[in-house]
């Protein structure tokens, strides 16, 4: 058995020796082992390859020099004494390049023959090619969602498929392998020349010189959405994504993955929210007319607009609600720091809300928040017709409820509070999001922070700790600043040491806090990309209670930022509204 990682690898040639090739694409738990072997700022897949293979007795590896990171991973494994067959893969696909690659294949044939002691059988090679030709790469009939960009672990691919309403087509850099039927000849040289041509004529990966034929991947009318993957520290596909997001009208979501299960919850949130945001996806999946569905929703909104409230705290009287034939729903937002619950009646009045600390037991805190809200509303659990849960713990609350991402919920809640809102900036305990809405309040686009605390509530907590003040004090003291200070470190940990240095330099507390407020505002605004954030802009999530950050946001944006009375409740409010709609 010989492992390979790239679709330009000549696996049929190895089959000609009667040996099987195995596509290597395994995730890892961590990079503790590879961090001793290679710098951490190389592509994560290369690190995962070293993490799994280094220091153990494994079979040979077939690599192409497809990028600098793989090239170096191959160098490291070779230095460990592992058998690595490294192929020089041309960047061009013209006749000269094909001839050169045929020479490279011939060299591999000789090397592998010497290594294995086996002889090449042209018949076995042809049979393997015919077998490959029978498997059309990643073909899907009818409407589909493409997973595009850089390679992705099989595990993540399955998870995305699990969330998707439409079939998935894997057109990532490793998912497009295609080989034709070989000519009827037993002449090895002629076969290799043909084979080199087949390998180099595939739809190219972004490392190749001419990538114009990749356009056909996004021009298919059956393509309904794209989940675009980039691998951490592989830069090739970030460029293609940057172009595609400007050029195509198909909804597209960018993920950055690193071959570990870290941030699995965050990735899942992104994917779920993306699919939720594509208004007509369910219609396509079930064959329904999605346009009719959209009209129905819009009508619902116009009816609801008459009873919108400015703030969630403006609750309807319980007596009033009892006196009519109303029903109730609940939204529960299980966040990383706090869990919030909102109960609404069928006339879209907020009956009650509650906030508790999440702690380590998501289910218990969700129950506690729910029951506190019930008590305030003077209702029993049986009177709640429908519940929607959201937030990081949304799947683990223990409620028999619908599960919706906090992106959709915050959008829903914010638009309910003010129908002019077009941008929602939600800064929570461990992540921040910029959500763009259309004039109907439907999510058009969103961006989330990467797995980094910068620009989140956690960042402020860490800095408050370094400054020896409470979060509440921090919220106020930055407003009386005098000297402008720039906190330049992108990383929270380095920012913390930068703050310590500023303290040592004798800088004033107010000025440092103001610098931190601006830092968090810059980080979050940068999430929104180059296009300016459309007004009205509303801040939600717990950090919106920090008036220093809000003022910094206003300073950076040059406009007023709306903040509801209890911004941390916005996600739960949206969830309760969605529960009403579902009911």
């Amino acid at each position: 058995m010989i492992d390979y990682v790239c679709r330009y690898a000549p696996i049929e040639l190895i089959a000609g020796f009667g040996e099987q090739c195995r596509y290597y694409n395994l995730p890892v738990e961590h990079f503790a082992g590879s961090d001793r072997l290679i710098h951490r700022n190389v592509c994560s897949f290369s690190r995962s390859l070293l993490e799994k293979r280094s220091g153990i007795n494994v079979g040979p590896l077939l690599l192409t020099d497809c990028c600098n990171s793989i090239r170096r991973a191959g160098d490291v494994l070779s230095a460990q004494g592992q058998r690595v067959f490294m192929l020089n893969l041309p960047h061009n696909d013209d006749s000269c390049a094909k001839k050169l690659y045929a020479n490279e294949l011939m060299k591999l044939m000789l090397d592998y023959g010497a290594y294995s002691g086996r002889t090449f059988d042209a018949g076995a090679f042809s049979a393997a090619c015919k077998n490959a030709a029978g498997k059309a790469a990643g073909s899907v009939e009818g409407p589909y969602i493409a997973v595009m960009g850089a390679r992705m672990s099989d595990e993540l691919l399955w998870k995305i498929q699990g969330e998707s309403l439409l079939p998935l087509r894997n057109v990532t850099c490793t998912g497009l392998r295609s080989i034709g039927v070989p000519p009827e000849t037993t002449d090895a040289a002629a076969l290799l020349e043909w084979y080199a041509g087949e390998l180099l004529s595939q739809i190219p990966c972004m490392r190749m010189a001419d990538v114009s034929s990749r356009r056909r991947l996004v021009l298919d009318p059956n393509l309904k959405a794209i989940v675009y993957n980039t691998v951490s520290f592989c830069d090739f596909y970030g460029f293609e994504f940057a172009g595609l997001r400007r050029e195509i009208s198909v909804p597209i979501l960018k993920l950055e993955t690193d071959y570990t299960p870290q941030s699995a919850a965050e990735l899942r949130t992104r994917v779920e929210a993306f699919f939720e945001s594509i208004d007509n996806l369910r219609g396509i999946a079930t064959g329904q007319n999605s346009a009719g569905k959209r009209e129905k929703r819009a009508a619902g909104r116009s009816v609801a607009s008459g009873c919108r409230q400015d703030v969630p705290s403006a609750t309807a009287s319980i007596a009033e609600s009892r006196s009519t034939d109303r029903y109730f729903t609940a939204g529960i937002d299980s966040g990383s720091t706090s869990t919030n619950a909102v109960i609404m009646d069928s006339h879209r009045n907020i009956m009650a809300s509650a906030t508790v600390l999440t702690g380590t037991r998501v289910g218990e805190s969700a129950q506690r928040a729910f029951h506190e809200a019930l008590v305030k509303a003077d209702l029993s659990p049986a009177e709640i017709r429908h519940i929607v849960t959201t937030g990081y713990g949304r799947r683990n609350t223990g409620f028999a409820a619908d599960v919706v991402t906090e992106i959709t919920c915050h959008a829903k809640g914010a638009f309910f509070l003010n129908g002019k809102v077009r941008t929602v900036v939600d800064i929570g305990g461990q992540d921040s999001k910029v959500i763009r809405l259309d004039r109907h309040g439907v999510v058009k686009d969103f961006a989330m922070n990467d797995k980094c605390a910068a620009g989140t509530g956690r960042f402020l907590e860490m800095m408050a700790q370094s400054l020896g003040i409470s979060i509440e004090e921090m919220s106020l003291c930055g407003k009386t600043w005098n000297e402008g200070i720039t906190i330049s470190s992108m990383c929270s940990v380095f920012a913390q040491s930068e703050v310590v240095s500023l303290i040592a330099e004798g800088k004033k507390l107010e000025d440092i806090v103001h610098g931190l407020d601006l830092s968090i505002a810059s980080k979050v605004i940068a999430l929104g990309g180059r296009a300016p954030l459309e007004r009205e802009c509303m801040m939600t999530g717990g950090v919106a209670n920090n008036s220093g950050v809000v003022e910094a946001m206003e300073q950076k944006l040059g406009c007023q930022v709306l903040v509801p009375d209890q911004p941390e409740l916005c996600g739960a409010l949206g969830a309760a509204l969605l529960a009403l709609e579902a009911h």
Partner: protein
Amino acid sequence: MNAIIDKFGHVVTASIQNHPGRALQLLKLGYGASGLQAKVLPNRQLLPHQQYAALNCNRAIQKPLQEPGNSAVVNLFLPCELLQAMGLAPQFVEGLAGYLDGACCEHGFIEYAEDWGIPRTYCSYHKTLLGAALSSVLEKPRFIVQTTLACDANMNTFRTLAEHWQVPLFVLDVPDVCTGETVDYVAEQFRRMSAFMEDVTGMQIDSDRLREVIRLENRSARLYAQYRNQLSTRYIPNDATSEMNKIFFTHVLAGTTAAEKYFSMMLEDAEKAASAGDKVRILWIHTLPFWQDSIREIFAPGSKYQLLGSDLNFDFLDEMDEERPFEAMARKALRNSMGGDMQRRTGRAIEMAKVLKADGVVWFCQWGCKQTLGAAYLAKEMIESAGYPVLLLDGDGCDRQNINEGQMATRLHAFLEMLGAPK
């Protein structure tokens, strides 16, 4: 002076988004002024060949800015003999990014590039050039030529630039090994590149002129070899900026009379230099963050540390066959020590450490350079096995806001103290 440049950088940065033409004019004025200063009031702390370099590198950067239609954007490792034979001015990534660094405005361009969608993990030199182009500050050249040698970023950067500017792009594919077949493969591409350039410019490449360029380059190579012999036993002061300037002459200006004069002056300066004495002799790998105070101070004239050179200036040291120019250029690309497996680059580093009698090696882990980063740990083992202590120094030679100056200075100083400690 630093405060003035800092202010200048702020003004340029403020113009990038909405007034790119103004930003370009400011840069041209700024480089014009610094060129004049290099000519009239050269830095007397520098050796004559370094003063000459400061002036001529400034000219090499200014020319494509003044005459973009008579220039080509290239990557560092492209053999530029054909461009020199045609009289076209090459503008290269590291050179322009370094100059924008010198004008304290690189981060504005990096931010622009990142906002545009360029990954943050990408090489900062390339991000700077991309930001300058995508913001329309940098005007379009006549065409772009790139190699695939050594650096993955080339493919992304130049493809993006060609699409943005709508100018012709030629990709010279350089395999990782030098064999008869690969020489033929690359030589054929140089022939096509020659036809491409003639087609785009409407000019003819004079084969006699091409041979003359190679002849000049060979004379420079011989002077440079003599210089290295001198360097092995002498203390020749060398600051970080001068070492980065050297890259112009060992690469894009190779084969010019300016380069020959530079190497000639360099040898003269070397012959006048004192013996090595007890200086701690450092071989540097990759680019130098010349704008960083801690680096500048360490290699300032009179310091007890001697910068022997960067491996980027030792990547090709052979002479070329002027009678077979296309094959010669192909061999130059294929034998470049930056290509291929890490043994090749590390082997050259060890060879240079031996020849130049280095006391230690600093392997600069440039942000975004997967080739250098990926080789770092293994290279450290290999170079240390050969008897030369190695410091792996994480940093960014281009982006001021992507470094931790204090941490870098501490690590570098500790390493130098270790090397300088009585044995």
